[in-house]
């Protein structure tokens, strides 16, 4: 198989998922992510250290647990902040499941599309706290830049596993993980790479929560009851809860996966991303709907073919209403819809990938995970089939939404893989 068959542009390759890795508030594996979701658990906790930030009203967050950074050799870890550590560990799990060894990493057939919202805020804060004492660079370590650069996660993962293909580091806030999967998908469809390691990662910093708090979009009423927030689509929701983690998937052309004889977990059949230029911050239902329609066109399917929508729904006042209206506009009231933010909080750049992984899990197991804390649907949200209890469901096709600050919309379409 040629390294790059982009000269044969007419060949559109089918793209399948052959590996998945997760670092989430439920633990450092896809199995723990899956288990936590199925058990209806919440990864949200009260965070005492957030009290140190003057004026921060939201003191809850969904932090990762069980991460063992020293599983990564110091030579590679020295240039990583936490987000790259999460990404590298998630990538390791995904590569292992996909049975991609060192030779295949180095073959040039595998690329990386992995992003984060920003470089490490914690590392940046630490550096400037020291630097601003005397404006001296004498204490500046050589590895600082590698933890701050925007492509830190992608570069660190590629270095750690000696991946020699293309590097892409999308940065689109909450849509980053989905964009990474979508752009990786398109790269394989076009034949530029046979395999792509795709996903997103972010590490929690109080200023992440502050970003949303200052916009009155963070949950502030559950500091004493963190296990009850966020509440997507619920009448009593009071905003989002920030989280952290990383989700990484191995995407691969169908012929590559068949040639290697690896298990196929799902198929990516469509992707759309577009800019909502109506506002840098406020959601717009009609533009969200347009993104979903474009994804359907990309996949060559009708709205009626979609069996489940995994919503972005972060539990903000405006966002949930807009997304529900957009879903109703495209799909009507009958498609089952749920959001995983109640379990995981909003894992930022990781969310698109972690929630896609969870969606693939639902498709494979035939069970829908309900929206945690959705007790009473907000009457201002559109009439939809909100999943409020675990539900057995044969899901052949699922649509995954993510909508980011900055006006970046994404919709991915996943299909259960069958040997056809």
């Amino acid at each position, binding site marked *: 198989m040629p390294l790059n068959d982009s000269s044969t542009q007419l060949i559109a390759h089918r793209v399948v998922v052959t590996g998945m890795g997760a670092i989430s508030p439920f633990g450092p594996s896809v199995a723990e992510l899956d288990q936590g979701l199925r058990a209806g658990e919440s990864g949200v906790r009260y965070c005492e250290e957030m009290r140190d930030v003057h004026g921060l009203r939201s003191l809850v967050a969904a932090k990762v647990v069980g991460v063992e950074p020293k599983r990564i050799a110091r030579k590679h870890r020295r240039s990583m902040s936490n987000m790259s550590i999460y990404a590298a560990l998630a990538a390791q799990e995904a590569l292992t499941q996909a049975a991609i060894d060192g030779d295949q990493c180095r073959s040039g057939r595998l690329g990386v599309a992995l992003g984060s919202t920003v470089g490490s805020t914690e590392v940046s804060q630490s550096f400037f706290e020291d630097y601003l004492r005397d404006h001296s660079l004498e*204490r*500046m370590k050589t*590895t600082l830049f590698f933890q701050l650069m925007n492509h830190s996660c992608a570069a660190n993962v590629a270095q750690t596993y000696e991946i020699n293909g293309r590097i892409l580091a999308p940065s689109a806030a909450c849509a980053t993980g989905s964009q990474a999967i979508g752009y990786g998908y398109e790269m394989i469809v076009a034949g530029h790479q046979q395999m792509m390691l795709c996903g997103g990662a972010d590490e929690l910093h109080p200023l992440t929560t502050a970003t949303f708090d200052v916009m009155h979009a963070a949950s502030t009423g559950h500091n004493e009851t963190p296990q009850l927030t966020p509440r997507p689509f619920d009448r009593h929701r009071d905003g989002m809860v920030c989280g952290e983690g990383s989700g990484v998937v191995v995407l691969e052309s169908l012929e590559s996966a068949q040639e290697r004889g690896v298990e196929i977990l799902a198929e990516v059949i469509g992707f759309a991303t577009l800019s909502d230029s109506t506002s840098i911050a406020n959601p717009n239902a009609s533009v969200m709907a347009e993104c979903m329609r474009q994804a359907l066109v990309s996949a060559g399917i009708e709205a009626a073919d979609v069996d489940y929508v995994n919503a972005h729904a972060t539990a903000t006042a405006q966002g949930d209403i807009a997304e529900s209206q957009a879903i109703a506009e495209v799909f009507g009231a009958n498609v089952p819809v749920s959001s995983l933010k109640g379990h995981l909080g909003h894992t930022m750049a990781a969310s698109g990938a972690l929630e896609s992984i969870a969606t693939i899990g639902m498709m494979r197991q035939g069970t829908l995970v309900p929206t945690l804390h959705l007790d009473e649907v907000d009457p201002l949200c559109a009439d939809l089939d909100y999943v409020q209890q675990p539900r057995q469901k044969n899901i052949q096709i699922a649509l995954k939404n993510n909508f980011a600050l900055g006006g970046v919309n994404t919709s991915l379409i996943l299909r259960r893989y069958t040997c056809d």
Partner: protein
Amino acid sequence: MTEQEIVTIINDALVEEFELDADEMQPELSIYDDLGLDSLDTVDMVIVLEGAFKFKIREEAEIKEIRTLGDIHAFVQRKLEVEAKN
């Protein structure tokens, strides 16, 4: 400060910074081949030593000649002696 105290400070600082095995810090070990440091690490090593001994050594030509852990011990010893005389 005794010679052994200097060696201890150096070894402790390097063990912490580069996650080395404290029991295997023998002076004859190559900092590259045995301790596994590379060019980025040696720049950071200078910063660590400057922090540990509160001196400035980054412009010293001798640093480029350092090959073993013992070379570091000797270099720091000489530097401290010169500073003490001044």
